């Protein structure tokens, strides 16, 4: 028995070391392949695959919209698959398109389409849209701002999704910080700070906000623009523009004001790992995040939920960071004319039913929808619809994508965690982006 145990253990040991060596030699990578089968189930049913990255609160709204479309269109089936978010999503979609396993249509952020197009993975929409009932003039200018590349349209916009301010009416009401009509108004940065300090003294979390990821960078961007900072990249998009003699003091002041919220007035607690969860749990008075949270937060928080547009913290123009959810057309030699037709039918239907999609919280891209009774009857959208006018996107480049630039985010987090002084940090942000732009990143 003892001998047998010994031998077994030895065999196991030898096999394990062999496996490790093999893994070490071969790079030990795990690959996951997502397979989208394009099949027609039954006669005359055309299937189109649609990938998106809606892992947030708006995902369930998209599920409902697609289900409604499939229900009302017996000859078309939209196979809707939600993949991961951010750079990993882009990696997955682009790799699949190159391997000819891509979806028929895919969602993207408006400001990353140029980057995708530069990899040669997208078709232009123009001929398909020309043969449909969709006009480019149906859409708001803001939603279309990055659509045209070399004279061709490379995306169809679904919405403008902007950052808005969410607040907890119970916490602020208790401290007497709401208007007579029970809403929140913030006059400027100092007023904001005063409100947050009052909440802090009362023991609640004043401002639930992360120190990593996109959010701190977006807050800096909004402060910077509201203070009168110019475009953050030069017109050729080869270098940053926020370090010119005119813009640099503004960029530093904007970052200092962001820094102070974390470290001086300390109205943002340290290491909030999920700012939306903390707010949703009713523990925080205010958070700033995207419109994709509106329906999700409203339905889970009930009466304490409040939302308003980004205030003018500085100056008179309440510029807000925004983006667009758009649909791109992956290059696909196997797409059939029937599928092309099905795609136009889907998009036409989506455009005329965009108020359904707007239930998630986003501002519709089709301007007529903004005037529709269905859209106007939505409970919260009126509080921030005005933001469309002040929506500011990141500059679209063929290399840097500001929404998920981890090296840039790392620098910002380093500033907020006091590892890098504010002034040095802003210079470091500039050199990081410049290096990425010069790399053809």
């Amino acid at each position, binding site marked *: 028995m003892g001998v047998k145990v010994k031998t077994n253990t*030895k065999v196991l040991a030898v096999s394990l070391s062999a496996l490790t060596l093999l893994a070490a*030699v071969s790079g030990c990578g795990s690959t996951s392949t997502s397979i989208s089968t394009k099949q027609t189930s039954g006669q005359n049913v055309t299937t189109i695959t649609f990938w998106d990255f809606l892992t947030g609160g708006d995902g369930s709204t998209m599920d409902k919209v697609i289900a409604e479309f499939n229900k009302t269109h017996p000859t078309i089936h939209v196979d809707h698959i939600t993949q991961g978010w951010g750079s990993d999503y882009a990696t997955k979609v682009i790799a699949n398109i190159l391997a000819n396993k891509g979806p028929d249509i895919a969602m993207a952020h408006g400001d990353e389409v140029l980057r995708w197009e530069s990899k040669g993975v997208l078709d232009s929409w123009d001929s398909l849209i020309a043969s449909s009932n969709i006009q480019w003039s149906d859409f708001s200018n803001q939603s279309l701002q990055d659509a045209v590349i070399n004279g061709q349209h490379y995306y169809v916009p679904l919405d403008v999704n902007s950052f808005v301010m969410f607040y907890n009416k119970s916490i602020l009401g208790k401290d007497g910080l709401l208007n007579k009509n029970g809403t929140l108004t913030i006059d400027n940065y100092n007023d904001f700070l005063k409100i947050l300090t009052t909440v802090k003294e009362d023991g609640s979390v004043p401002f639930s906000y992360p120190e990593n990821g996109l959010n701190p960078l977006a807050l800096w961007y909004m402060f910077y623009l509201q203070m009168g900072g110019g475009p953050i990249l030069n017109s050729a998009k080869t270098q940053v523009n926020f370090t010119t003699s005119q813009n640099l003091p503004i960029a530093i002041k904007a970052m200092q004001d962001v820094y102070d919220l974390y470290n001086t007035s300390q109205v943002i607690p340290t*290491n909030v790992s999920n700012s939306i969860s903390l707010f949703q749990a009713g523990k925080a008075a205010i958070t700033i995040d995207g419109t994709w949270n509106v329906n999700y937060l409203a339905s889970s928080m009930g009466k304490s939920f409040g939302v308003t547009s980004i205030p003018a913290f500085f100056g008179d123009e309440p510029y807000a960071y925004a983006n667009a959810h758009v649909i791109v057309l992956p290059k696909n030699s196997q797409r059939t004319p029937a599928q092309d037709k099905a795609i136009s039918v889907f998009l036409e239907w989506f455009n005329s039913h965009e108020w359904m999609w707007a239930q998630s919280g986003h501002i519709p891209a089709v301007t007529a929808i903004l005037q529709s009774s269905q859209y106007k009857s939505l409970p919260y959208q009126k509080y921030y619809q005005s933001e469309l006018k002040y929506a500011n996107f990141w500059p679209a480049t063929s290399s840097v994508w500001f929404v998920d630039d981890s090296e840039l985010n790392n*620098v910002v987090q380093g500033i907020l965690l006091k590892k890098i002084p504010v002034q040095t940090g802003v210079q470091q942000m500039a050199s990081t982006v410049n290096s990425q732009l010069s*790399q053809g*990143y």
Partner: protein
Amino acid sequence: MLPFFVLYTIFSLFPILNGLRISFFNYQLTGQSTFVGLQNYLHVLRDSVFWGSMWHTVLYVLISVPPLVIMGFILAIIVNAPIKGRRFFQVIFFIPNILSISVIANLWSAILGNYGGLVGTVLNSLGIHQQINWLSSYHWVWISLDIVSIWWESGFNMILYLAALQDIPDEVYEAAIIDGATPWQRLRYITIPSVSRITILVTFLQTVNSFQAFAHIYLLTQGGPSGFTTVVIQYIYSTAFQNFVFGTGAAMSFVFLVIMIVFSVLQLKLLTRNAEGGA
């Protein structure tokens, strides 16, 4: 031998050589790639984020290999002892090793997470109300990652050591006991020298393994806070597959390969010399 060689050529040799070729190009996924000579390598050599990530990788090797080797040895001693339920302990100690990386990451996120993680809640109930950010503060993050690695990987080293321990003839210990050797003396003068060759193997394998660490760190910290735990593989991954700069990404891989080879050769020389001297 031929089938192996064919598969090895297709799936290992060809990608490696193609990677080497790509590292000399401004490589485009579609369209024209242009030959840029050593430009990608020069960029890598000047890239402070690359060297920062490289240092994080070396740091991880330094802090993870010794405890993983020692822990593997200790666990092997425990499960090799004539105790009741040793089989049970063997399984318990080894099981974390077979879990997938995403399971490990989820589990430890729940244990170490901020505001409501298991450890935080337990400390809270013991009267320690300070919020400790195990996975997102500069002070704790590497220690936390090290603990996760020890929990996850020690079992594998335990199996290797166990095989070695079972090879030591019982007569040697019996003779030592008759001669009056204490348990410590038996460990110091019989057990440790007898498994020295396995120690070399375990240390070497563990070093290679720790150099390649990426997934559990990425899943637990995303390389944060502020890039403090970004290891070199993560940086290569994000350069090549998230930012699509394949030429530079490939160049980074080969710089990393050279560093690893140098490190491994030095380590093997050092270890074998020590083992020969000590045996």
